[in-house]
């Protein structure tokens, strides 16, 4: 496996039917195992970048390479499969399918990716291990996810992103729905588990105060030439 987790080369992305590009990134590279804090205010092209990295959006120009695979050269189904196999996502909130139990939510990636199922070993035992490590009380595991508190839901979402040890974790504002004391606790848990799994972590937030403890801090406004600060 390549020492570079993520390489972006000359990337230009434009929303459909819009004249101005919203992403124009000449170059970016992230090393395997690196924990990167990506600081970006809203309008700086954050969700477009995540869409391109996840393979749900295709750039107009340029190349994105994840762990040596040029995902921008893959077809739609191959990009979907690559995302399932190699990337774990945590979103701002409403991460979970509310009608599945916490444990079943954690197990979801194993039903979409044979690779992650294999890497999880015994998926149910691994889900239990992750939920324990992320401090979710055992009696909540089999409750519908919709009945958990926001903080509990975010920990379940982290366990789901981690199961089957995907090489890349992408967290998009995962703490913005949490109160301040819980934010740092959640970040500590996430950093700890990502480190234990040897995953590369891309943590995106508009809140620069959370940047401590990360190996590297990037500002999207600096790497994205299309984000001149004037974008709404």
């Amino acid at each position: 496996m390549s020492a570079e987790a993520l390489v972006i080369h000359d990337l230009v992305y434009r929303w459909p039917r819009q004249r101005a590009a919203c992403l124009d990134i000449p170059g970016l590279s992230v090393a395997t195992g690196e924990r990167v804090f990506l600081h970006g205010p809203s309008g700086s092209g954050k969700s477009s970048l995540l869409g391109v990295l996840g393979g749900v959006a295709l750039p107009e120009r340029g190349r994105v390479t994840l762990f040596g695979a040029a995902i921008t050269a893959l077809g739609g189904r191959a990009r979907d499969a690559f995302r399932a196999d190699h990337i774990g996502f945590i979103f701002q909130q409403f991460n979970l399918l509310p009608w599945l139990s916490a444990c079943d939510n954690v197990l979801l990636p194993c039903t979409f990716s044979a690779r992650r199922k294999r890497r999880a070993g015994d998926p149910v035992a691994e889900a239990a291990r992750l939920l324990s490590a992320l401090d979710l009380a055992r009696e909540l595991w089999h409750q519908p996810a919709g009945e958990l508190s926001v903080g509990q839901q975010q920990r379940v979402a982290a366990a789901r992103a981690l199961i089957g040890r995907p090489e890349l974790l992408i967290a998009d504002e995962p703490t913005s729905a949490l109160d301040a004391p819980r934010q740092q606790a959640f970040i500590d848990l996430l950093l700890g588990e990502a480190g234990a799994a040897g995953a590369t972590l891309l943590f995106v937030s508009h809140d620069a105060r959370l940047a401590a403890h990360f190996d590297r801090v990037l500002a999207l406004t600096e790497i994205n030439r299309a984000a001149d600060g004037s974008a709404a």
Partner: protein
Amino acid sequence: MKAILVLALKSAWARRLTLGITLAAIALAAALLLAVERVRQDARASFTQSISGVDLVLGARTGSVQLILYAVFHSGSASNNIRWESYQAIAQNPAVAWSVPLVLGDSHRGFPVIGTSPAYFERVRYADRKPLAFAAGRPFAGDADAVFEAVIGSEVARQLGHRVGDRLLIAHGSGELGPEHADKPFVVVGVLAATGTPTDRSVHVSLPAMTAIHLDWAGGAPLPGLQIPAGLVRKFDLQPKEITAALIGLHNRASVFSLQRQINAFAGEALLAVLPGVALDELWQTLVVVEQILFALCALVVLVGLAGLTATMLASLDQRRRELAILRALGAGPREIFCMLLIEGLLVTSLGVLVGCVLLAATIAAAAPLVQAHFGVVLGARPPSANEIVLLAAILLTGLVASLVPGWRAWRMSLADGLTPRH
């Protein structure tokens, strides 16, 4: 794909209330459509099998539908009678195995009275050649010693409360208000079992009885000054001079057309012979438009039900944008999202159709006796016919088409939203 199937089922279960209501609407619509189809088939079967085992119906020359109407359904009246001699000539034709004469025109409290021979109860069949059965009593004797005996159909017995041993009067003409043959009461000697045919609504008496009650009548009214007491009628010749119609059975069905030609060309009198099956079909055809309108209405109800499915699923999509984005993040492609919606639509449609079938079967089981009693239509519990299976398949197919719309929209949505749905 299996993962998507399981998730589609669980997601649908989480929205079971709204989907359940949609399902109920589809079930009711499907049951209605199937019921109309079932009643249509059974009504047609009941109707066209009102009489079976009879090869020809004989009457005076008239329209074939009109002949069937009065000879089989005892409705309307014959414009002309047949002379007894003409009837005898045809009954003795070597091709004829048996014949049953019918004299019509009188009634008992609105129910038609049929003068006939005792052979009527052996020869007249209905449905799939089922013979008439007696719920109580016996056929009338038909001889001069026991003239005033009557056998009533099940519906007559039920509505008028007549039982074996009861007395009844016969009125002249078919109305409720005709003058009665009050001096010659009949005794009910038999009650027929229900058949779902016009027999249920008939009173049967012997030919001599028919002649006897008219001995002292002329031109539709009692002859003034002449009254022949019931006890004396056997002194008279009770052989009828005319009959209204006759049912004819042949030795060999192959000779039916040649006999029909002979009868229609009968020299002595203008006669008509019709094949009852053909004439009944012809009569049914006049009702087909009603049947088709009813069917079209029910098909519309099904379409409304399925449009409800489309609307429900489209409405739920807005609330499910997050759910679809999460599935996308987990690796589901737009194709899987599309399939998920199709699975949901097909699930609701097929469960709806299934529930509709069960509903129909239960309703038929509960309502069959009532329907037969009131409308004379025999509804049976049976596996779906080929027609019904085609209908079920058509509903499922339409359900699939109905879920294509939300499926396509979810596809578009998941492509546009990617991982971050906008609200």
